[in-house]
């Protein structure tokens, strides 16, 4: 539409007319282009450029609109935006007032993913040295997940079954769509402010790459890396790998796997306890038995029996002594008897001497004393024993 300008009009008037034309003509635009100079202001509004090889257009996206964008735009990403053209008179500039933004294709997201992955990996956020050990028997487990999601239901039911001793602390979060990245970051932060939490599970059920996108956001990765409490991620299905999975201290393929990995099974624990009980019974019984054996064998050992033996020995010695004594007594007795008879005979002899002193004579023949006349043999010589001497007489 052209107008014949005959008079000079003001700048504002011109601008107003341009604005009218522009905004009416371009009430709805659908544009593909590459992001550049992207700035998310503190106010929440986004300001950026869309460009291609030859041209560039400024864009704005107000806070209310951009909160629906599920990913964080990055310079270089190709996006498709929908919106309308507006003209800003004070600056004489036009821009697209963007209403919606999405990646130009899944490839765009892939690229963003690879870029961030490399960036964080180079920084060392994925390093094994930084990863912490998950406690074996966690008493308190924090869970970052959607309060109404299947992931939470699964986690609760498995925890009940396997290890009801533990305590779950749930920090609810939005796990997809716009604002979810911030929500997850806040939830991790909230759990970190609580005491005595042993491990955090960040969980989300399966979904598309867009659905899981918040787990690929840089600030989520950093929140996990900076968490003082070890983080286990259980996001999506077995095949899904998010940036969060690379950063976390342990990746589980699913939320259910996450809670299973970090808890012992009560049934197994009961078995261990029972096993230990019977081991202890066995050990104490055999120990007592062993000691009993030692005591018994000690009592029956030679050392213990020897007092009896000693006594017996003593008895034997005694017997021997007594025997000896008896023997020697017998001997003594014999000696005594002999002496006695000796003395007796001496006494007897002494009696004879008295008789001889009186004048009697003892007659001997053949060395035999003769006490009867008829025993006397005249022809033989005889000895006459006088008191003082013996005299021999012969028949002439």
């Amino acid at each position, binding site marked *: 539409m052209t107008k014949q300008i005959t008079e000079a009009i003001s700048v504002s008037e011109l601008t107003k007319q341009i604005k009218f034309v522009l905004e009416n003509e371009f009430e709805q635009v659908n544009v593909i282009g590459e992001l550049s100079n992207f700035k998310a202001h503190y106010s929440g509004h986004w300001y950026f450029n869309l460009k291609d090889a030859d041209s560039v257009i400024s864009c704005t996206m107000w806070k209310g609109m951009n909160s629906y964008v599920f990913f964080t735009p990055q310079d270089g990403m190709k996006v498709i935006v929908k919106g309308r053209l507006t003209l800003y008179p004070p600056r004489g500039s036009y821009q697209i007032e963007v209403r919606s933004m999405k990646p130009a294709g899944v490839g765009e997201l892939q690229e963003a993913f690879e870029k961030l992955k490399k960036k964080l990996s180079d920084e060392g956020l994925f390093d094994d040295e930084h990863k912490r050990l998950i406690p074996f*028997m966690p*008493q308190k487990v924090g869970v970052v997940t959607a309060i109404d999601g299947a992931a939470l239901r699964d986690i609760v039911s498995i925890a009940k079954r396997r290890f009801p001793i533990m*305590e779950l*602390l*749930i920090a609810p979060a939005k796990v997809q769509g716009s604002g979810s990245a911030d*929500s997850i970051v806040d939830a991790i932060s909230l759990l970190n402010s609580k005491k005595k939490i042993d491990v955090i599970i960040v969980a989300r059920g399966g979904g598309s790459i867009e659905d899981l996108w918040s787990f690929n956001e840089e600030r989520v990765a950093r929140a996990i890396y900076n968490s003082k409490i070890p983080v286990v991620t259980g996001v999506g299905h077995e095949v899904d790998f998010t940036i969060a999975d690379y950063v976390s201290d342990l990746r589980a393929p699913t939320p259910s796997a996450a809670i299973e990995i970090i808890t012992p099974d*009560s049934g197994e624990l009961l078995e261990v306890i029972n096993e*230990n009980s019977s081991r202890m019974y066995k050990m104490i019984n055999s*120990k007592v038995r062993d000691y009993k054996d030692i005591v018994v064998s000690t009592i029956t050992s030679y050392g213990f029996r020897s007092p009896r033996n000693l006594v017996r020995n003593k008895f034997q010695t005694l017997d021997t002594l007594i025997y000896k004594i008896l023997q020697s007594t017998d001997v003594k007795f014999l000696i005594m008897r002999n002496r006695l008879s000796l003395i007796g005979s001496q006494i007897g002899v002494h009696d004879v001497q008295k008789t001889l002193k009186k004048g009697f004579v003892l007659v001997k023949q053949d060395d035999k004393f003769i006490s009867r006349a008829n025993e006397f043999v005249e022809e033989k010589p005889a000895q006459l024993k006088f008191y003082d001497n013996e005299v021999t007489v012969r028949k002439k």
Partner: protein
Amino acid sequence: MPKKIVKDSFETKLKRLEEISSLLESETTGLEESIALFEEGMQLSNICMKTLKEAELKITTLKNNLTELNFAEDSEE
């Protein structure tokens, strides 16, 4: 001793139980000590089994400023 047992965590109790088992198997543990250990072990064993059998999962949902909670489980910390 009983007071201390109650305060220790489940994991600590279990570890002590295994420790007692090993000590009882050792030949250097005397008879009196063994009996004392055995008693402690049986106590621990009973407490642990009771804990496991009677345990009920405790769930606490934290409030934050992003969501409203009318979840049925226990209230916030």
